[in-house]
């Protein structure tokens, strides 16, 4: 295992060292000490690395991640795992707003709560939040799954495309074109698989499913009040 202490080395040094692993992996296990809320830690990785970040991170930790597996042993700032393509990111604490924004793939697990716009414009990522999510979560979500084990704030799934949303607790309100849908056997299986992958102990039967009513997919003047 290689350890990098951000107190003594810069984020640039850290990221360059991690990027240098992309063509050929010579060190799979990494530990980052004293992240101290710094921004852009471990972003742009492109290798099957295991990176433990021992503290809180600032904006865009793990941004555009491919293949790597990150664990943040603290809270994560804005846009954790934004545009992630594959691999996984686990936040042991809470995540700020726009967690997993536009992410195309991989798994984002937030063991605490997530702020506003969790999963905004998500494009295929799976996001599992053990706590609550803030308002406008999954806004314009295109593909993937958002699982909320706690409550969801206002306007969940506004202008939704094809993301499947599962919530165990209360939903303060649904956004435009987002509706509750029937939970069928295949959805229970999807949830079970997501809990297995994320290591979250929950019963799928306790969740409700939400998705797009698809009424706003093509403009109709009769829907003008929804715009």
């Amino acid at each position, binding site marked *: 295992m290689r350890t990098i202490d951000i107190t003594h080395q810069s984020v640039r040094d850290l990221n360059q060292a991690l990027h240098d692993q992309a063509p050929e992996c010579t060190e799979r296990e990494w530990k980052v000490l004293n992240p101290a809320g710094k921004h852009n830690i471990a972003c*742009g990785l492109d290798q099957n690395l295991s990176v433990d970040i021992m503290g809180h991170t600032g904006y865009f930790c793990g941004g555009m991640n*491919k293949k790597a597996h990150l664990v943040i042993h603290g809270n994560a700032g804005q846009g954790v795992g934004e545009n992630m393509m594959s691999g996984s990111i686990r936040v042991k604490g809470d995540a700020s707003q726009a967690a997993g924004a536009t992410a195309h793939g991989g798994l984002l697990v937030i063991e605490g709560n997530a702020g506003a716009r969790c999963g905004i*414009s998500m494009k295929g990522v799976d996001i599992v939040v053990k706590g609550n999510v803030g308002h406008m979560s999954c806004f314009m979500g295109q593909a993937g799954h958002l699982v909320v084990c706690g409550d969801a704030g206002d306007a969940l799934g506004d202008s939704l495309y094809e993301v499947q949303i599962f919530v165990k607790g209360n939903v303060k309100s649904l956004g435009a074109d987002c509706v509750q849908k029937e939970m069928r056997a295949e959805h229970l299986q999807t949830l079970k698989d997501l809990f297995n992958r994320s290591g979250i102990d929950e019963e799928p039967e306790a969740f409700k499913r939400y998705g797009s009513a698809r009424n706003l997919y093509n403009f109709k003047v009769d829907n003008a009040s929804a715009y």
Partner: protein
Amino acid sequence: MTDINVKPGMRESATFDRNTIAEIQRAADTGIYDIRGFGAKRKVPHFDDLLFLGASMSRYPLEGYREKCNTSVTLGTRFAKKPIVIETPVTIAGMSFGALSANAKEALGRGASAVGTSTTTGDGGMTPEERGQSSKLVYQYLPSRYGMNPDDLRKADAIEVVLGQGAKPGGGGMLLGQKITDRVAMMRTLPKGVDQRSACRHPDWTGPDDLAIKIQELREITDWQVPIYIKVGATRTYYDVKLAVKAGADVIVVDGMQGGTAATQDVFIEHVGIPTLAAIPQAVQALQEMGMHRKVQLIVSGGIRNGADVAKCMALGADAVAIGTAALIALGCNHPKWQSEYEKIGSAAGFYDDYHEGKDPAGISTQDPDLMQRLDPIEGGRRIANYLRVLTLEAQTLARACGKNDLRHLEPEDLVALTVEAAAMARVPLAGTQWIPGQSF
């Protein structure tokens, strides 16, 4: 529109003219606002309102056919390890695959590469055809992040963070369902045939302080190799440019209200933003006050049509320009040879702007396989290269006449304005006077 039925004594209202009447009736018929492509069609102060002061007794001209006039510009010298060198200061603006056909994107890449300049992706990501045929490709980073991935990001020669565009500052994009084919849908992770909406602001940051962090992220992911541009629609340009410099931009792109779009509400195109002519001096002032003029390069777009426009932009302080609508016209958009086809879809050569419908007879703004075949990317590339060469030669001609051996040596002192409005906006004297409106002398 014909005046054949207008007889003496019939007076058309200036307020409710025939276009206005037609739009009111169209709105009443359909219940939806008019969506179209192209840029602002209203007349605004523009580069035609400026003239160059060629050399005479007090200035020394350069021989047009003998003496060199440099057109090469380096973009991204502030932070990037690999700045872009373009051989002509005319670049191709961002236009998406989806809005344009794959053949059109390839043709733009071929043409730009032939003259050593850059082309730019758009909403929807980077296509292999475009990357393969573009020696210098700028990758747009847009609010929608459609097709956005780090592999393509690293393949780019520069990254352009798009905050807005001149046709619709403050607005997002749209690509109507008829253009969302299987390939476009796959690239954008959307169901086929839906009306695709692009967000008007980025999903994971708000404001210039956040943008500074976002730019740092993009630099980290690309290991500080490539320049980062920031593109804004021209509105509060003075402040936007200052904030862009503060946020860490290498290059700033300012797109005036004449800049084109593939699909936007007509009311947006015609009523939001300021003319390109008015935006340039604001941008240059902001850069000069920060000591960053020429250090952070300025690219200007929005209604650039000929070498005179290029030279005037440079004289006002731009480092380069970008063309979009003019490039499509060079490819064949609105060509008279398609007149009968335009008539079939209710338009005419010279008027066609319904890019969003995907029925472009010229095969440019369409995803229809049959229409797309009408545009040969090799021939299209040749036309683009020809046009770019003409723009460059024309700009050089004017620069030499002003005694400049580099396009970037042109300066506001070389210009006068024909109208009070243009003089005020461009901050150059009204022709034959020393008067710049708003400035004492």
